[in-house]
């Protein structure tokens, strides 16, 4: 009851935390896509020596426990670490870095699977038309845009629900690095279930929206609309 009340009255804390969550996750997603999507296309069109190894590494990284990613980023950014001078620890930037590391392998793997299929379809045509390497990659990224959006949504879903890594590198500081998942963990620990549930509803709504979008994208794709 109280949880619903927090939602309908747009409780200031709740709104602030939700917006920060979205900002951190969308930033991480944008950076991750810039890295993962071209990488996926490159892996699809090019037969270079390290290709198989790169794909294997990506798949292995997908199973990396987020807590470990958090720990590594923490060590890197801590005062004594190699990037300590940047003073990034316990800032949203640190959280974005950790999330990027967590979702790049996921987005790249999903994107690579569909771009590889697309490439096997396009291969002969694009070779026949003398498309350059760069043109091949651009064509795959453009024509595969639905599948890539699906990959990005999966990345978003993973990042927005992640708690372990960003708790470690962000520190869950009120009005600074507190986001949906870390706030839920905290409020539950404190026994403030109304706030925890309210935040939980927001998180669930976001997750459901993402999954519905993925489903809808898959349907329009199979019907040939876009």
């Amino acid at each position, binding site marked *: 009851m109280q949880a619903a009340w927090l939602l309908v009255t747009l409780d200031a804390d709740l709104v602030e935390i939700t917006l920060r969550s979205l900002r951190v996750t969308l930033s991480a997603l944008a950076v991750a896509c810039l890295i993962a999507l071209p990488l996926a296309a490159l892996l699809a069109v090019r037969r270079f020596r390290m290709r198989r190894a790169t794909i294997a590494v990506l798949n292995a990284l997908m199973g990396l426990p987020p807590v470990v990613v958090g720990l590594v980023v923490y060590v890197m950014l801590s005062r004594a670490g190699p990037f300590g001078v940047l003073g990034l620890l316990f800032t949203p930037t640190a959280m974005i870095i950790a999330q990027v590391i967590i979702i790049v392998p996921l987005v790249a793997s999903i994107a690579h699977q569909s771009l590889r299929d697309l490439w096997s379809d396009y291969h002969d*045509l694009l070779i026949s038309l003398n498309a350059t390497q760069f043109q091949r990659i651009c064509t795959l990224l453009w024509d595969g845009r639905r599948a890539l959006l699906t990959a990005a949504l999966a990345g978003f879903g993973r990042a927005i629900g992640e708690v372990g890594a960003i708790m470690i590198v962000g520190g869950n500081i009120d009005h600074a690095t507190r986001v949906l998942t870390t706030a839920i963990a905290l409020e539950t620990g404190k026994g403030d279930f109304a706030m925890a549930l309210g935040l939980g509803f927001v998180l669930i709504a976001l997750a459901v929206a993402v999954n519905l979008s993925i489903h809808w994208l898959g349907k329009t794709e199979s019907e040939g609309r876009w």
Partner: protein
Amino acid sequence: MSDLFPVSVRNASVRRRGKVLVGPVDLQLGGQGTSIVIGPNGAGKTSLLKMLHGILRLGGGQISWACPTEQAQRQQAFVFQTPVMMRRSVVENIAYPLRLNKVARQEALAEATIWAERIGLGGDALQRPAVLLSGGERQKLALARALIRKPRLLFLDEPCASLDGRATREIEEILTEVAASGTRLIMSTHNMGQAQRLADEVLFVLHGKVAEFSPAEAFFAGPQTDQARAFLNGDIVE
């Protein structure tokens, strides 16, 4: 750009996993007319066309065009047996080769529209997703997308294999026009009527080799090899 003919193929072969798909092939092709490639299923027609087009890597021998290979490739186009429908609209599919050559978008689309109409894909069809086209429409799209490159040499791999009589006639009419305008055609087919209607010369392919290469009239009047004779009679060729 200088002309790519005559082309001479010497001892050329293509291998896959130790197996010889094509060759060794020795051929001299002049710059005029239409060559029809015939032969039983699995004989290597598709592989031969792709080898000549340069999209299958040679395992041995060479293909020498009258101009540098890169220039030669720019003057060729290929219509695949199963046309590739890019996930784009019909008109964007046809415009795609121009876009690769850095032609401005509006100009490319305008030219694609002209080709689409010439080939019978105009009007409402233009903006439809290409993946929704029927078999005959797909072949037309692939043909328009090949012709927009204004190729000197056009390869066609069984372009009418899955089409009904009327669609086949439409494609043949277009091809006759294209040939009359000076484009060199090399086309495989298993439709002997079509082969007789279009061919100036015939390449009979068997077991990956060119078993017979003759002017069309001579070939259809009396093939030199027993296998070709059996094939024309509709017998099983071993």
